[in-house]
């Protein structure tokens, strides 16, 4: 394994819950929203439907302009890494921490 094992996820979906933004005590904006992903993927040599909701965290000023443009049903492509949702050990929930967010127009879809 690498010294820094891979943790990259790219996913597309529709915004289903508008971002709520907090500001950390040091002044870093932290936005949280959900997307719904729907696709057809191949598995065991057969195609199947995949559908789930995923929580997104977007931290930092750089992502704020695009976060501000999101509305319900905005189609987005988010690239980032996965991390645990909280520090408590019973929390196995993961969230996608965005490094880039792109709002898709029809041509991209």
């Amino acid at each position: 394994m690498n010294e820094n094992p891979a943790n990259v996820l790219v996913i597309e979906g529709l915004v289903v819950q508008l971002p709520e933004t907090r500001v950390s005590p040091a002044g870093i904006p932290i936005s949280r929203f959900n997307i719904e992903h729907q696709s057809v993927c191949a598995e065991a040599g057969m195609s199947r439907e995949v559908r789930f909701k995923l929580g997104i965290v977007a931290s930092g000023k750089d992502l704020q302009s695009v976060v501000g443009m999101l509305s319900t049903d905005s189609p987005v492509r988010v690239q980032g890494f996965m991390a645990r949702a909280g520090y408590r050990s019973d929390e196995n929930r993961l969230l996608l921490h965005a490094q880039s967010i792109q709002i898709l127009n029809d041509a991209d879809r």
Partner: protein
Amino acid sequence: MRLVSETILRIAVPSPLFRLFDYLPPREITAPLHPGVRVQVPFGRSRTVGILVATSRSSEIDPARLKRVHAVLDTEPLLPADILAMAQWAAAYYQHPLGEVLAGCLPVALRGDQSAEVRGTTVWCLTHTGIEATTADCTRAPQQARALEFLQHHPDGCSREQLNEAGIGPHILRALSARGWLETRTRAATLIASSAVPSAAPSLNPAQAAAVDAITAARDQYQSFLLDGVTGSGKTEVYLQAIAACLAADRQALVIVPEIGLTPQLLTRFRQRLGIEPAVLHSGMNESDRLNAWLAARAGTARLILGTRSAAWVPLAQPGLFIVDEEHDASLKQQEGFRYSARDLLVWRAHRDGVPIVLGSATPSLESLHNARQGRYRHLSLPERAGVASAPSLRLLDVRNQKLDEGLSPALLAHMRKHLDQGGQVLLFLNRRGFAPTLLCHACGWVAECRRCDAHLTLHQRHRLLRCHHCGSQQPIPVQCPTCGCADLRPLGAGTERVEQALERNFPAVPQVRIDRDSTRRKGRLEDLLAQATRGDARILLGTQMLAKGHHFPGVTLVGIMEADQGLFSADFRAGERLAQMVIQVAGRSGRAERPGEVLIQTHHPDHPLLLQLVAAGYPAFAVAALAEREAAGLPPFSNLALLRAEATDARAPEQFLYAASADLDTRTLTGIERWGPVPSPMERRAGRTRAQLLLVARDRKRLQRLLAEWVPQLSNLKSARKVRWSIDVDPVDLF
């Protein structure tokens, strides 16, 4: 021991040594010297100022080796016999070197070789241009305009204290001076400015009248009174009438309050009702004013003296009455250096001087209640509120499983709304300043801790700082977690700053003030905020204990105590007593006028016996139960404590010293004395030092005193003592 032809002067010199030093008188002086005068003496390689404590015909030192006093600084004793005796008693009782005790009881201005003369006071006066200036000249500087107007109303100039009281700080004075409007002059100190005609005394209720009668009947003899009066029962009026009787009998009265903050309102009442200007003594004054007040008290020209702890040491020409207000308050005990209790000292002094002393409180300390029960103090109760005020009702709010909005429960918010709608004021008490007591990393659980203390750092959002409330160190808020790098750091728990935000959100139209150490840092700010609160301009008053002590807010109909649980599970045996006193004192802020007050206490432990008892039966019932508990546990006032503390940067040094001190105890008589420790202090690391302590507990005070007198003075001879800072605390008020 050798007899010598000359008188030997036994001098107390400020030094850590537990002994007096013998000197010979200066050659040119032939008249006998009296104890209490200051002398300048050679000491080690330098000169220092000491106080003559006694004269003797013999010395343990070869008279040929004795040095001579350089100079005698006073023609008559600066310290009268009773103060000298009290210093000697206190030095022995609290195990502190007499030289330091005596140096500490003088005003700073007299600790050197300055003459004990009244000094001129500096006053600020307007210049000719200043007198002719108008507020229109400073439209863009409203504070300057206000100061200008104030000074124009005081053509004789104002002292720094007067200006401070008026909320005019040094920066405004500098600004006005820079404009050429203001100058300083030296005015001969007028010690007692007679003021207005005294206003008429209100009529007393029977309990008040009985208290005044008892105190005045004890004139010219020692008697301790415990004036135990619920808040609003008119204790101050009892003080006033007892003082008036004392002044009428041509005696001086001395009043001690625990904090400087409590002096202005008492001053106002004393001025109005007694028609005299009290002399004030506290650490917030400049040296020459303090000296003048001290000299006036000593000369007898000041008839009424009001001060904080250290004023217990002021000499009086004709003492007639001592009063200690809020006698339960822990600030009456000095917590560093010479650790004495101003209250206990003054009781001793009252006995020595043969005058009555009144200890007043709505929530008397268990020590004083015990003394009253034993018949040592006379118990004077004021069980009823004076005038039309009725007692507030106390109720617990169970906040378990409640969704709290920054610490505010839905029930508390609903009650606040109701009282605000009915035109009342609401006081919220939370003894935790800052935004949040903890900053936590949401990703990994890291907590911001002080590098130098065993404590979390408090988040101060407005100043963008993390501050340690124990050592005062501060640092910027980290942008990311130092452990895992996550940016999602979250404030946990609520301090006053955070609650203030929640209140602005919940009651956007209601004006509020927040009163805590952070919001009142600027000079005059506290007075300003308190005035807003008293006038009713602010409808929600949020604050820490600064708000809870002594101030009267007649319009407050609801008091919310946001957290009562901190005191329920503390390691300190006095925590319960403190909590009960705090609850009752805060509750006492409400319902002073015609409207009855309501007090709500949020708790996660609504079944806790202490809270249940306090709410159902009040402080006296709590005190009875608490005293029974203390008796069963053999804790004060049923035993006597002495705490040996040690601290050092070296983590092991404190325990090594305490073990050595403890081993030394083994060689002594320990009958009836228990030894607890050495143990690490409850907060083991503070300001970069490791701390440990050794507690001695004894039923019999005399036994403990005998042991301490043998043991403490030679602790500094222990080898391990050199590596630590150590102190002995007799009758400690807390065990931290």
